[in-house]
């Protein structure tokens, strides 16, 4: 009863009147808001005033210490040449950046310049994702003069156009990292491995076992790199696992089985590694539990600087009987521009200049002071200052050997984890190699077909 009496203080008519007044006031306030902004001063002579409005350039990049340091160098450098551009740096965590990039592009509210990884966009038509920057960036031929062409081929680009500027690459599987203390213990000349078999042999000699035959220190662990490594090995054996023209996946082949068997033997025959010693190869390295691994060239700097484990990088050498020396470097970090910029020449020029500055020699040299991965820029390694940079020489050694033999399958599968899990099951002896390869093909084929059908329609 109390509530009923209380509610009768305001009649329905009064309520509707109040609501109408409130709604009207809100509407008026909303309409009046733009007019409330101060008006631009009119030119004295009555002509239109020259535009002094600054360009706001929104930059999305992955939030990690290295990128923050690079941005701190790049932004003031950029401002020297572009005083009229306000750069709004937005550091976004890896997972968030991945999750929001495509939906934001679809909604048209993405950043103007965006850091990306090539495997984020393999399942799309890249021309729908990023702006064609071939001409603003100086032309494809000029870019391929400055950078290795393979870096532009990580994603199928229609018409040979350039939709991203390649920047950094960790090259998981295409590089090996070594604990130099362990190499010295066994007097292993890791810089002169000629074949992959020599790596395996070194791994055997570096592996330490306890009395029960359990691995207590892994001489060579392929655990984090076995999936990309499988592809490199299949290619080197003269086989193929994906036909770009037909879209057919075919790990189930003589070469596929031989490559998988080679990896399997590392665990069960050569016993350079097992699944019991550690759960994370990256953490194991810092505990000196692994002597050689393929987690990516970038780990050397992290392990050396943070974990204080002396690490060096080398390119994964070819198989002794390789029909062709090819390496799959997984993915590349790069920079793409928003398609919105096509209608805003001033902002487009600023965005291209900003991206070119990041991937150019000056910024890259800054990056290689604390990053041991590779950059795709030949210019960077041709710069004499490279030798003075902490990881310059090692990065140069790996990049100059790896990029010329790098290859990407240009498939359209965005998520490889289920296929990678199948290979891991085979390595763990949970299913046979044949079963794993067949399961991988089934999953990847389904994903490829879905993507191709979608792209075709």
């Amino acid at each position: 009863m109390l509530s009923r009496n209380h509610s009768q203080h305001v009649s329905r008519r009064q309520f509707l009147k109040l609501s109408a007044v409130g709604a009207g006031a809100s509407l008026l306030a909303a309409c009046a808001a733009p007019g409330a902004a101060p008006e631009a001063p009119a030119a004295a002579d009555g002509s239109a005033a020259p535009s002094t409005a600054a360009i706001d350039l929104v930059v999305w990049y992955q939030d990690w210490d290295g990128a923050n340091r690079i941005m701190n160098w790049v932004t003031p450098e950029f401002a020297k040449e572009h005083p009229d551009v306000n750069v709004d740096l937005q550091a976004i965590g890896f997972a968030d950046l991945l999750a929001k990039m495509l939906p934001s592009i679809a909604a048209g509210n993405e950043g103007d310049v965006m850091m990306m990884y090539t495997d984020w966009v393999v399942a799309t038509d890249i021309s729908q994702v990023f702006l064609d920057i071939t001409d603003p960036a100086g032309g494809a031929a000029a870019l391929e003069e400055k950078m290795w062409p393979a870096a532009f081929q990580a994603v199928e680009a229609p018409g040979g156009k350039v939709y991203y500027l390649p920047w950094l690459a960790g090259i998981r599987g295409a590089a090996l990292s070594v604990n130099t203390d362990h190499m010295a213990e066994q007097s292993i000349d890791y810089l002169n491995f000629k074949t992959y078999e020599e790596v395996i042999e070194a791994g055997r000699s570096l592996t330490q076992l306890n009395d029960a035959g359990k691995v207590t220190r892994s001489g060579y662990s392929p655990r984090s790199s076995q999936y990309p490594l499988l592809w490199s090995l299949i290619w080197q054996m003269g086989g193929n696992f994906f036909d770009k023209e037909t879209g057919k996946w075919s790990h189930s082949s003589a070469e596929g089985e031989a490559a998988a068997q080679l990896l399997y033997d590392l665990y069960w025959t050569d016993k350079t590694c097992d699944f019991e010693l550690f759960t994370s190869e990256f953490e194991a390295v810092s505990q000196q539990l692994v002597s050689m691994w393929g987690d990516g060239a970038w780990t050397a700097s992290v392990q050396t600087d943070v974990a204080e484990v002396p690490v060096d990088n080398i390119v994964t050498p070819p198989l002794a009987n390789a029909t062709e020396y090819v390496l799959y470097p997984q993915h590349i970090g790069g920079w793409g521009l928003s398609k919105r910029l096509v209608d805003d020449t001033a902002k487009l020029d600023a965005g291209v200049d900003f991206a070119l500055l990041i991937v150019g020699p000056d910024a890259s040299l800054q990056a290689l002071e604390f990053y041991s991965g590779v950059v795709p820029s030949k210019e960077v390694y041709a710069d004499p200052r490279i030798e003075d940079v902490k990881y310059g020489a090692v990065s140069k050694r790996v990049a100059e050997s790896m990029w010329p033999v790098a290859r990407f399958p240009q498939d359209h599968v965005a998520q490889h984890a289920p296929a990678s899990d199948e290979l891991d099951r085979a390595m763990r002896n949970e299913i046979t190699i044949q079963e794993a390869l067949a399961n991988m093909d089934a999953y990847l084929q389904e994903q490829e077909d879905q993507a191709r059908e979608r792209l075709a329609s």
Partner: protein
Amino acid sequence: MTQTTMAGSPIQIKAAPRAGLLKRFRRASPFALIYAAAIMIFYTVIFIIPFGTGIWLSFQNWDFLTTPKFVGVRNFTKALSDDYFWMALQKTVLFSVVEIGAGVVLALLLALALSYMRGKWQHFYLSLYYLPVITPLVVSIYLWRWLYRPTGGAINGLLSGIGLPEQPFLASPTQALWSITAVIVWAHLGTGAVLFLAGMNDVPESLYEAARLDGAGFWQMFFKITLPLIRPVILYQVVVSVIGTVQMFEPFFLMPGPGFSTRTLALYTYQLGFQALNLGYGAAVSLIIFVLLLAATVFQLRRWQMSWEH
């Protein structure tokens, strides 16, 4: 409206005359309208708009980036001829039937056992069996992944300890689905047991006393008294479980079996929409799941109503 008394004589109940919608709206208190509007707005934003968008999307071809393209019922006809869809549907039905069947039977037996306990022991065991319910499912999944490990896993350690052969569990295409089913049954057992125990506690003791005097045994009392009287609770649990199991995603995503051995419709929808970026087809499959669930729920509720009237 007519209802029937226990004696069988009909009672006529005069239905109140229904006021028109506009009339009722005009009579309503302004505050009631505000409260109702708030809920309606919330419901519209979090359910009606996304649901409507999902229906609209199921008739489009869209990859997040390009302009959505109307494709009519193509996404639905495609599902009917898609072997992967049927495979996922089969896994979903198999999983749901076994999970709900085993879950209900085990929860009933557990509740029955607990109903014979009193005081602290009942509370102790109830808490023990309810623990998995309050444990985050993701934590449980990772725990079970470790228990199920083919090499070095705790369950295989136990099996080999008592001389039984080790099992591949999640690594086997034939065992993976049932291994996941066991985890979900374990995780939900406490919920069913609590509900059934509450239902059993509501059964009048006099009925059991009368049955005992008539010489009924334990199982006779269970099947002739307990089970019929807690049928509404069981049916409620089944309806809720059907909806929950068909939509279940986390265990299949986080502890998958080899190949497509554990890919259910919920996981397939996710893969279509967010991995293959085929949002239109993904939405169509999710709409099919919705229709299947709606049909199953309506069917069960009708059965429930019939048995209740009976």
